[in-house]
């Protein structure tokens, strides 16, 4: 099991997956915006999306757990 963490504070602008989806390592799973830049975040491992803790438009803090992949 591994977590997708927020690298810095910002805003969620797109979710590429939902709970139950299967993902491959390095797949883009979530896009956040910070410093007026889009930042794609990748799945840290192959697996299934177990939890999605944010929705589009949410503000996020550094190191917040955005998603759990199992």
């Amino acid at each position, binding site marked *: 099991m591994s977590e997708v963490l927020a*690298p*810095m*504070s910002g805003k969620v602008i797109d979710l590429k997956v939902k709970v139950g989806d299967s993902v491959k390592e390095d797949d883009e799973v979530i896009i956040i*915006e*910070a*410093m*007026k*830049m*889009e*930042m*794609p975040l990748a799945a840290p491992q192959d697996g299934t999306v177990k939890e999605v803790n944010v929705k589009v438009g949410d503000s996020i803090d*550094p190191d917040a757990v955005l998603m759990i992949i199992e």
Partner: protein
Amino acid sequence: MSLQDKLDELIRRNKEAELGGGQGRIDSLHQKGKLTARERVEALMDKDSFQEIDKFVVHRCYNFGAEKTKIPGDGVVTGYGTINGRMTFVFSHDSTVFGGSLSGPFGEKVCKVMDLAVNNKCPIVGLNDSGGARIQEGVISLGSYGEIFKRNVMTSGVIPQISVIMGACAGGAVYSPAITDFIIMVDKTSHMFITGPQVIKAVTSEDVSAEKLGGAMTHNAISGVAHFSAKSDLDALKLTKELLAYFPQNSDEKPAVIPCSDPADRIDMSLRDVVPDNAKKPYNIKDIIRKIVDHGHFFEVQKNYARNMVVGFARMGGMSVGFVCNQPNFLAGCIDINASLKCSRFVRSCDCFNIPLITLVDVPGFLPGVSQEHGGIIKHGSKIIYAYVDASVPKITVITRKAYGGAYDVMSSKHHGGDINYAYPTAEVAVMGPEGAVNIIMRKELNAVPEEEREALREKLIADYRATFANPYTAAELGYIDEVISPEFTRPKIIAALRMLKNKVVITHHRKHGNIPL
């Protein structure tokens, strides 16, 4: 004793020394996938070039029964030979002998070879696999460590010093590598810590594995202590050879220029498509590096640490160069504390050994936040300024997109001594991004209009600002940018500048030494 007996005695003694701590311990090393101290040296050096010295040195300790066991060599193999035809000195800890622990004579051997290296102005490579001080020797081993540390410092910037960590290195055994120019760690079989897991458990009750505390990935990704992670002993030695190839033998020399079959005037139209049209979209700065360097080969340093800054070596027109680049793909390319440390150390490493610096800039600014300010980003960020201004090597800068605010200044700007500063037509050299700037300087105008018209006005003002400042031409009109270039010409332009700057000299004021904000 007959002559034959004397010759036989030499053969016997050599064999004894070469067996180190015995076949049993050698077999156990091999089972773990590790090489012996001598096998490592053989793999590092050109075939049959290694000349060993001090092979018969033994310890002189009479404490705690130590006198009963003496093994010739005393736990370290030292000597010299060639790597890719160039003279290099080496010491290699032998963990089969007293765990590779450091005695007085062990330290004397290492110091002897370090002195030879610096006096003959050739690089030194340390293959480290040592549990630390030999406790039976008491304060003598501390004295020996001190002698080694002192030499590391005195030698710093005179000859390249490379440390390869190939086993568990604890206590004093980690400070010597820390002073050297680069640390290469073998993944899974090497560790570095000041105090190991048992001591931590006893003192603070923290439970942590050796791997998590001080393994290769810990030091490559989290602490930034190490510069490379290798898959095996052999891989680590291969990395060492490649790394040394970018360096001259000493700071009086320039790096070797090798024959290059990749044309210096090669243009690459695909460079036009790397920087996205939309300023919000990230891209991989390494895509630009690989398209402009010789044969697309980029030797990245600290690739798992502070990934918002990319540093590493490559060749351009056969010349050795160091790249320092913001990485828009990670943290938007913001400069934070770790990126500052990574960048400034690399700039210093290149400058000591006359390796020109190529800086690719796409930076939205310094990372805002309480943790950054409280962590001392002011102090650490200023190291970049210090390192770049102090660097007297040729400095060539290419602004690919954003160069905002203080981050514009620090990234090898004209004002900090950039010799040739290029910008792509996509460059935006400004105090800040259009959105932020408009919100501040046009606040009154924005507040003066009714709310429903405010967004439209904001959009218009942002467009005006972008047209006025978010381009390379204002900076080019001031001479801060020497030339605005189309991306496909990046390689020939940089190589032309490198050739022009070949004999660059910088006159500096006399001083004892500057006071870098450490």
